[in-house]
């Protein structure tokens, strides 16, 4: 009810799909690829931009809930189209201690591969993916851009991974 604007949202890559691999910079001299986390669940949190108020709250919440994610052996990766220097300053300013990946060049390529790119705005959606230990998307969700989706959906998805005995 907060958001009565008509929002056209992408349909994110659905559960059951193999998660497209990627390699993105997390610092000026470090790259992170999805495949290096094979064997453990991965949470991909696409967000539109560093610094915007909702993003900041969302990432602060995830930092706070990170120990709970870790209980499921899960790794958390934040992704936006911002460059690496913006990410570094943002992470430092907001006390974020998980990788923020720069989907910067070609811009939004990874977001597009996950069907979570907003062409008009040139940013990714606020989209969440939980990927299992075998690299399969098990849960995906796109939130209205102005709405912080919270962490509950992620925790439920991680719980369900355990129940289905795949991780």
């Amino acid at each position: 009810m907060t958001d009565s604007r008509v929002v056209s949202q992408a349909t994110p890559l659905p559960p059951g799909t193999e998660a497209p691999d990627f390699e993105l910079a997390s610092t000026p001299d470090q790259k992170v690829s999805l495949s290096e986390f094979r064997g453990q669940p991965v949470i991909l949190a696409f967000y539109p931009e560093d610094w915007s108020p909702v993003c900041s709250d969302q990432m602060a919440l995830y930092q706070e809930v990170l120990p709970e994610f870790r209980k499921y052996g899960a790794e958390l990766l934040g992704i936006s189209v911002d460059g690496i220097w913006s990410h570094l300053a943002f992470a430092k300013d907001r006390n974020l201690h998980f990788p923020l990946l720069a989907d910067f060049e070609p811009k939004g390529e990874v977001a597009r591969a996950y069907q979570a790119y907003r062409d008009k705005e040139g940013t990714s959606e606020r989209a969440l993916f939980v990927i299992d230990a075998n690299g399969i998307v098990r849960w995906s969700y796109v939130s209205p851009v102005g709405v912080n989706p919270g962490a509950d959906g992620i925790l439920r998805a991680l719980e369900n991974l355990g129940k289905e005995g795949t991780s």
Partner: protein
Amino acid sequence: MSTTQWEAVLTMPVAEDRDHIQGPPDAAVTLVQYGDYECPYCGEAYPIIKEVQARLGESLRFVFRNFPITTSHPHAERAAEAAESAAAQGRFWEMHDLLYENQKRLSDEALRAYAETLELDIELFEKEMAEHAHTERIHEDFMSGVRSGVNGTPTFYINGVRHDDSYETEVLLDALERAAAEER
């Protein structure tokens, strides 16, 4: 329009013997707030809640639960500990109010000064603060919030359902009155 795929409802029911509560158990409407003592939006909500409580009187039950986001608010956890320590001495709400009225002064020294203002047993207060005696409860509040779909502070639940609208006085009052009417 729903903002999530699932309905965000309170997963940990209000318990008279556990929660910090103002208002009668048989009130027509229960408002639960997940809050952070250092969060400026919670600071804005504080006088609004007071106003809403004054206007609704005995038909409202208000519950406060901790949701400190220490990543953004370095003093929030300690402030929550101070409030819980005051609660252990039966003075939760006085401390809660002092903290919101002094949001910019939440250092350990300031927290101790508030405990003195409230004439708490300082030795016990200091001991609990040093031992982090109440962190488990604070974390329990926090996780109950996460599991209920709290996505920032303050987040409100009216009769167990997340209030996704604004918390301006009139909007909140309206929502509370509607929920109260449904209960009758």
